[in-house]
């Protein structure tokens, strides 16, 4: 799946590198050294953004480690193998109408900043 270049460029502001990854017919965007919101530990980690529906979620964001944030989250994906790496994700449903990739990413990152 291809995305507008300006959306990829906007996404690149959040990480050091964006690359495409496809597995099981699902397209992911691999975000290297993604910056996480204030209060997260670690502050930077790799992430996989899945902009399309997966596991009953309209989109998902996976992290290369389980992140400690200001609020307790339900990490319902732990150590899932995608692209020969382990990934973690918490239960967070984002419903935005036609978001850009950066807006989608920020909506997922807001899971660390929002209480519920």
């Amino acid at each position: 799946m291809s995305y507008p270049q300006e959306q990829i460029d906007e996404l690149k502001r959040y990480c050091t590198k964006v690359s495409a990854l496809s597995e099981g017919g699902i397209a992911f965007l691999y975000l290297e050294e993604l910056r996480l919101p204030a209060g997260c530990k670690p502050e930077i980690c790799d992430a996989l953004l899945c902009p399309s529906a997966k596991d009953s979620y309209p989109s998902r964001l996976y992290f290369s480690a389980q992140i400690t944030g200001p609020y307790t989250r339900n990490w319902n994906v732990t150590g899932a193998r995608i692209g020969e790496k382990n990934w973690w994700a918490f239960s967070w449903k984002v419903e935005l109408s036609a978001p850009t990739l950066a807006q989608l990413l920020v909506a997922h990152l807001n899971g660390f900043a929002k209480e519920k």
Partner: protein
Amino acid sequence: MSLENAGQHLEPGQGSAEALFGAPGSEGLEIDIAGMAERGHEVPHAEIFHVPIDCERVKAETQHPTGELLLSKVHKRPCAFELIAEFVHCENRVIESGETVDLRQHGLKGFITAHKEIVTIFIKGDPYPIERGERTVAEILDKVGQTPDGYVLLEEKDGPPLPVPPSMRVKIGGCEVFYTQPQSGGSS
């Protein structure tokens, strides 16, 4: 005539004002305004003016710089700092960012800067005044008629715009850059 080329150093209280006035035209001439003001001399036409700002001595390439330009010489911006002109007769005057200053005006010896109490922040590119200090996310969103229930506040600080937890107080010093985005996510 360049004073440096002529082998002259123009420090406050040194050099000869007459020699400066004797220069043919103002080409290459560099003038230290503090030195002239302290000697009570009129500042002649010059190409470059040496201007004291706080503890620095900066170069202004125009006789009529704006307040913003002078602030930028000491790496400060009008969204956080104000510029104050100092005169030899103990008079001070605030210079607005867009106001032009005549560096040749009588008695002007330099400038100081001061942190503003009411600073400017930028939300989605537009400027908004706000009191300096720690502010809540709700106070910042209120500037654009939004609330934390409906919108996420994103701060662009040393990197991309990232969400700020509504419970966190944001340190405002002036010139901070924010964006907002509709709240859209939730624990499922």
